[in-house]
Structures are given as C-alpha cells and as structure tokens.
C-alpha cells in the first residue's frame, strides 16, 4: 500500500485537511502499531480515537470483564456486553468503527516479561491501567526496550498525564514516585466520566502527534489537572540520580 484508496481519502478527509497532514502522514498512521494497556475509562476512549484516526494495528490488553459500573465512563461497552471480556467487546466495536484496522486482543494482565517480549514490535505504548504495579512494570519495560510511553491516570477530580522517553535521561515514572505502593481505584475514590475522558483525549492527541512527528509532545513533562477547580499545571521531570530503573549504571 503506497497510497490511500478513494475510500480512505474520504474516511480521513477531515484530518487530511490539516496543514501538517498529507497522504504520507496518513499512511504513517496506517503502518503504526500501538499497544494500549487497560481498556477502562482511559483505554476505551484512547482506543476509539486511535482506531478512528487510522492507526493501523492496535494491540489491546486487559484481563477484565465489562461490569455495569463501568458503563458511565467506558464508552466502548454497552449494557448487553456486561460480563464479556473487555478485549472482545472492544475489538468488535473498534473493528465495526474501522474495519480496515488490525486489532489484536490480549486477554491478560501483562507481566514484565510479557511486555519485554511484545515491545520490540510496537511504536508506542499507552498506559491506561488502574494500578501502581502495572504502571511501574510498563515504565520499566518501555525503558529497557526504548519504546515511548504515554501514561494517563485519573482518580477523583484529578488527572495526570506523563509522556516518557526515559532512556534519554529525562526521568521516568519510578523517578517521579520512587516509593509508590498503590493508590485507591476509581471504585474506591470515585470518578466522573468526563474527567477520565479529558485525560484520555489528551493522551490520544499526544499519541497521534508523536506517531505523526508533529507539534510538541512534551516528553519528560507531567501534566496535572484538577477538574473540580479547573486548574492545570505542567511540571518538568528530573531524573532521580538513585533511580533503580533508569539511572542504573549511570553513576
């Protein structure tokens, strides 16, 4: 495939109108392979926008099943899908949205060794998980395999977004929270759908900009958002000189 078909030109016509876009840029998306880990409130919105934009190969990882309490914010799922594996429901929905994509469902909680095996074949990892240990394992695997990572998180009224290329010495997730054990889940601390959707939209936007190599992706920066007070801030990360993940061997 060296040029877009007429159907593809029509499907992607709105994004192709952007001055930064052209057929070769669209083809770049169609040839991209992205791993989305976690298909909850973040992952379902991220996956939907990436599939819509024509990211050619999506790997979707989640071991969870759809539950009724997911439906207010996990927009890929329907009431009829309660009890289904999220990867199966999501694959069916995304494949209907954009039939030309390759979607690989992975019904598993990926371990560090799973991640290390998968990462060499992907261009980008999107961390949409709901627990600290998965987040730190993904961070470590992306560092070791030198795959860019865009990590989103939402809880209560707060959202955080972190884009990382930690092998460049800009710091990593572990540098930011070196003694992180775990944090309350959405079911424990509450969440409103649009808050997690906002983080997910930013995550998807950064992902597309990175794949297209356009604009500013702000790697090495933490974006914090407070949805109750409408405040946000952007903070520059620094490598923790004692970081066991990304500073090992530096000193």
């Amino acid at each position, binding site marked *: 495939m060296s040029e877009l078909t007429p159907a593809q030109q029509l499907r992607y016509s709105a994004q192709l109108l952007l001055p930064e876009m052209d057929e070769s840029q669209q083809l770049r998306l169609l040839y991209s392979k992205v791993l989305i880990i976690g298909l909850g409130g973040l992952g379902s919105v991220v996956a939907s926008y990436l599939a819509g934009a024509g990211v050619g190969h999506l790997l979707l990882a989640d071991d969870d099943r759809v539950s009724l309490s997911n439906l207010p914010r996990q927009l890929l799922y329907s009431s009829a899908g309660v009890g289904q594996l999220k990867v199966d429901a999501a694959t069916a929905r995304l494949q209907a949205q954009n039939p030309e994509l390759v979607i690989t469902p992975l019904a598993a909680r990926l371990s560090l060794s799973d991640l290390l095996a998968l990462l060499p074949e992907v261009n980008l990892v999107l961390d949409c998980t709901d627990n600290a240990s998965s987040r730190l394992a993904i961070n470590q695997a992306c560092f070791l395999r030198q795959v860019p990572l865009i990590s989103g998180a939402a809880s209560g009224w707060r959202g955080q977004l972190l884009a990382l290329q930690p092998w460049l010495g800009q710091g990593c997730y572990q540098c930011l*929270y070196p*003694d992180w054990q775990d*944090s*309350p889940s959405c079911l424990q601390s509450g969440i409103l759908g649009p808050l997690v959707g906002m983080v997910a939209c930013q995550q998807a936007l950064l992902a597309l900009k990175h794949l297209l190599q356009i604009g500013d992706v702000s790697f090495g920066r933490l974006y*914090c958002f407070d949805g109750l007070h409408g405040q946000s801030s952007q903070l520059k990360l620094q490598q923790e000189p004692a970081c066991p993940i990304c500073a090992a061997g530096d000193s």
Partner: protein
Amino acid sequence: MLIYFNQQPFSLTPPCTVAEFLAGQQQLRPGIAVAINQQVIPRSCWDTQPLNDGDTIMLFTAIAGG
C-alpha cells in the same frame, strides 16, 4: 521569606529544606512528588534542596485510576 505552597502564601524562616518543610506540614508520606517552580525535585534531593524566597512549591500525589 515568603513561599507559595499549593498556591497559598506561607511565611518561613530560612534555612529550610524541602524535607523539613514537608515534615513541618505533616505531608511526608509515600507516593508523593514535589515540584519547585514547575520543576520536579528528585526524592533523594529533598534533604538538601533549600527553599528560597518566592519559590512556588507544588505537592501532588500519585494516582493510578484508569
């Protein structure tokens, strides 16, 4: 000196390190990060990093929800 902590003005007697300030505010707990003037301060520097007049300090907590 005057610093700003989570957007509130705070009067402090120098010298005061990040770790001393957080301990004084009873904020030292796992899973937190601190930025001074929009720059994250690595944990191993908290004991030595001094606060200066006019600094803006932000404390934020790790969140994991998705």
